[in-house]
């Protein structure tokens, strides 16, 4: 190799990526990044996965990052390459996923000239990244890459863009290793304030109706956080609920688990949240999908909030005990203090609280009317769970009803096993995310639970599956509708199904075959198990098109603008549709 001060920008870039532990890049070439692709061609330490659309490169990098805990890496060209990446960047931003996205840029002397395939990438991506860089001097390049990885994974993780003008990646320059780079200003706090943690323990010790409410921050913090949280649940005997982003943080099989919280959370989780007297929020952010109507949110509770991002605290809900820090660090301290103080929770009160909760559980809120004729979507997810649970599968979803049924009915026992677009709600997320997961875990069972509409938003990635021999399984709940849109129109817009029905869909079996995958179909309940078994045992990419009852809705549901104790429990509640004006303006 050439001496260290005689590398071109592309060599420097790839060397820095290797030094950062990158193994895979998801990308799509184009004019501005040709020199980088030329260097990629000459080496074999970095694997490149060629996608079919830049948005998919970003989601694939997200899937890779979420299932491994490493930083995902994407490479796209200038102009349309970078604008296509924007959705994936914002998706990663809202779900706190660490990514580094390299974007090509026109040469520095053409910047600002409306040159061919020029976009103001740093301008466009500023609000949808944690940070971004435009590298104007090749001698800054290595430092910027190392900084970018540090920023992406430290504190609250997020996406970082590095915009690379073509002349910078061809110029000769100097390489510096990661050990020599320290960030000047960005040093997030990981250790929680000891006094605040003591106060939290004090509150928890005297709680009569406590609730632990944990989210994606636990998963982002790493396996230690999940173990500590599981330990805290056992030690305290407190009930716990998880957000969509937190599913799997503590095993769903734990008897203290109340199910998911929020708009489509369980009756028991939402009522426990409404009635609790001490709420411990751990790595979650009081998102509007969780709180419902803020004014009526957990009105009798004192709240403890553990979050690594100080801006999450007191944003939507005022809390009594804020603790800024990394979940694992804070829980470790909290458990230690709990033990040294020999905290004994109020057993009598706790028993009464569990009795109340068991009463709510008895409602069996996720129950649905089974059918012998039609496949109920809930039944499809239940069967998928039963037939795959022993195979340690990674589950990805698209966005909509199928996503909520998966969250409600698939039982996640481990962190990092559910990849779903929680914050941004990006249709078309699941298939590319599943690609990324499969690349990271080549021998694992990776399933994208999809809707027939969502899947078509990035269906072109079937070709990527074929090219890279990724045996992703696509499990489509096909109800011919934009199901969640139809559900809202039914509940909030007088049943006027404006543009939510799609009367033309591809034949998914033939479509699978056209892309070199295997197509399967299940039309009635009796077909389903065999179809799922065939899907699992096929060592190639599969689309299983499951025709489900088109009229089914996701319940329970807290209508937008309603409180936790105003849940709709099922079709019988629909009769008295609460067409609230407040709710209609909310999303």
């Amino acid at each position, binding site marked *: 190799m050439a001496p260290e001060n005689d590398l071109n920008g592309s060599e420097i870039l790839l060397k820095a990526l290797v030094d950062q532990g990158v193994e895979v890049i998801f990308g799509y070439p184009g004019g501005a990044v040709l020199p980088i692709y030329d260097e990629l061609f000459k080496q074999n330490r970095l694997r490149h996965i060629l996608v079919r659309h830049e948005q998919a490169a970003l989601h694939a990098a997200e899937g890779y990052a979420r299932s491994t805990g490493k930083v995902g890496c994407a490479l796209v060209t200038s102009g349309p390459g970078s604008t296509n990446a924007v959705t994936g960047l914002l998706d990663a931003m809202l779900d706190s996923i660490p990514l580094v996205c390299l974007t090509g840029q026109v040469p520095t002397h053409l910047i600002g000239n409306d040159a061919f395939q020029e976009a103001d990438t740093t*301008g466009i991506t500023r609000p949808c990244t944690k940070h971004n860089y435009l590298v104007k001097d090749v001698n800054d390049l290595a430092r910027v890459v190392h900084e970018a990885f540090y920023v992406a994974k430290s504190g609250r993780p997020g996406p970082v863009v590095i915009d690379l003008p073509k002349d910078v990646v061809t110029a000769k320059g100097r390489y510096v290793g990661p050990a020599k780079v320290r960030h000047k200003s*960005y040093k997030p706090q990981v250790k929680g304030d000891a006094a605040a943690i003591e106060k939290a323990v004090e509150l928890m010790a005297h709680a009569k109706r406590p609730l632990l409410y944990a989210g994606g921050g636990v998963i982002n913090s790493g396996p230690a956080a999940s173990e500590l949280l599981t330990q805290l649940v056992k030690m305290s005997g407190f009930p716990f609920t998880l957000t969509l982003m937190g599913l799997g943080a503590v095993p769903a099989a734990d008897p203290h688990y109340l199910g998911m919280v929020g708009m489509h959370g369980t009756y028991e989780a939402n009522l426990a949240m409404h009635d609790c007297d001490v709420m411990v929020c751990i790595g979650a952010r009081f998102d509007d999908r969780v709180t419902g109507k803020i004014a009526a949110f957990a009105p009798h509770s004192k709240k403890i909030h553990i979050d690594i991002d100080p*801006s999450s605290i007191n944003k939507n809900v005022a809390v009594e005990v804020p603790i800024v820090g990394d979940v694992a660090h804070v829980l470790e301290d909290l458990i230690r203090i709990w033990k040294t103080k020999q905290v004994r929770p109020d057993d009598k009160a706790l028993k009464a609280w569990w009795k109340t909760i068991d009463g709510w559980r008895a409602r069996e809120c996720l129950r649905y009317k089974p059918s012998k004729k039609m496949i109920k979507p809930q039944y499809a997810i239940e069967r998928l769970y039963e037939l795959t649970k022993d195979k340690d599968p990674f589950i990805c979803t698209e966005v909509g009803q199928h996503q909520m049924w998966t969250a409600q009915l698939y039982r996640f026992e481990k962190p990092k096993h559910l990849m779903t677009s929680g914050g941004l709600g990006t249709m078309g997320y699941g298939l590319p995310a599943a690609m990324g997961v499969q690349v990271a875990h080549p021998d694992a069972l990776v399933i994208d639970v999809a809707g027939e509409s969502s899947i078509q938003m990035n269906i072109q990635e079937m070709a990527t599956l074929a090219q890279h021999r990724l045996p992703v399984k696509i499990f489509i709940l096909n109800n011919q509708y934009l199901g969640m849109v139809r559900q809202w129109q039914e509940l909030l817009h007088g049943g006027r199904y404006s543009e939510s029905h799609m009367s033309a869909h591809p034949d998914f079996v033939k479509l699978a075959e056209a892309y070199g995958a295997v197509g399967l179909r299940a039309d009635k309940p009796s077909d389903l198990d065999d179809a799922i078994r065939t899907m699992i045992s096929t060592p190639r990419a599969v689309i299983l098109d499951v025709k489900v009852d088109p009229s089914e809705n996701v319940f329970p549901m807290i209508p937008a603008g309603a409180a936790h104790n105003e849940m709709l429990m099922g079709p019988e509640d629909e009769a008295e549709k609460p067409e609230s004006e407040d709710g209609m303006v909310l999303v």
Partner: protein
Amino acid sequence: MSKHQHQRRHTIAVLVDNEPGVLARVIGLFSGRGYNIESLTVAEVAAKDNLSRITIVTSGTAMIIEQIKAQLARLVPIHRVSDLTMDGPAVERELALVKVAATGEKRVESLRIADIFRARAVDSTNESFVFEIVGKSDKIDAFVKLMEPLGLNDVSRTGVVAIARGPRPL
């Protein structure tokens, strides 16, 4: 509750890396999240360390002001955020250049008022003055108001700069 919903004016000082796009990050944060900017000033303050200082005057409820500070602090190139309204006493100043075009008695009157406000004439022609005035924003407001009937036709203001009283730096 009413205490939380009461709107207050805050002056916030922010120390940032002097790099391209840093001002856009701060302004984008305010517009993207719907916060008010009443005034904003920015200039390099430590060339050696490549640092600039941004002074922002904003208003909001206590919860919003807390959010603004937390959101600013999490921007990567930001070193320090200080709420000068909350963190002890501070000195606030603004500079304005005020152009008054008049002749005769009005011209004399404008000079007299400028004298009272300790404004200096920094440019003069037979039919105009440019006054330089330094002070708190309300002092400048008052000066401008008094100049209006006297031929005021142009104003340029710097926005507020502020610094904490006492020996401690930001």
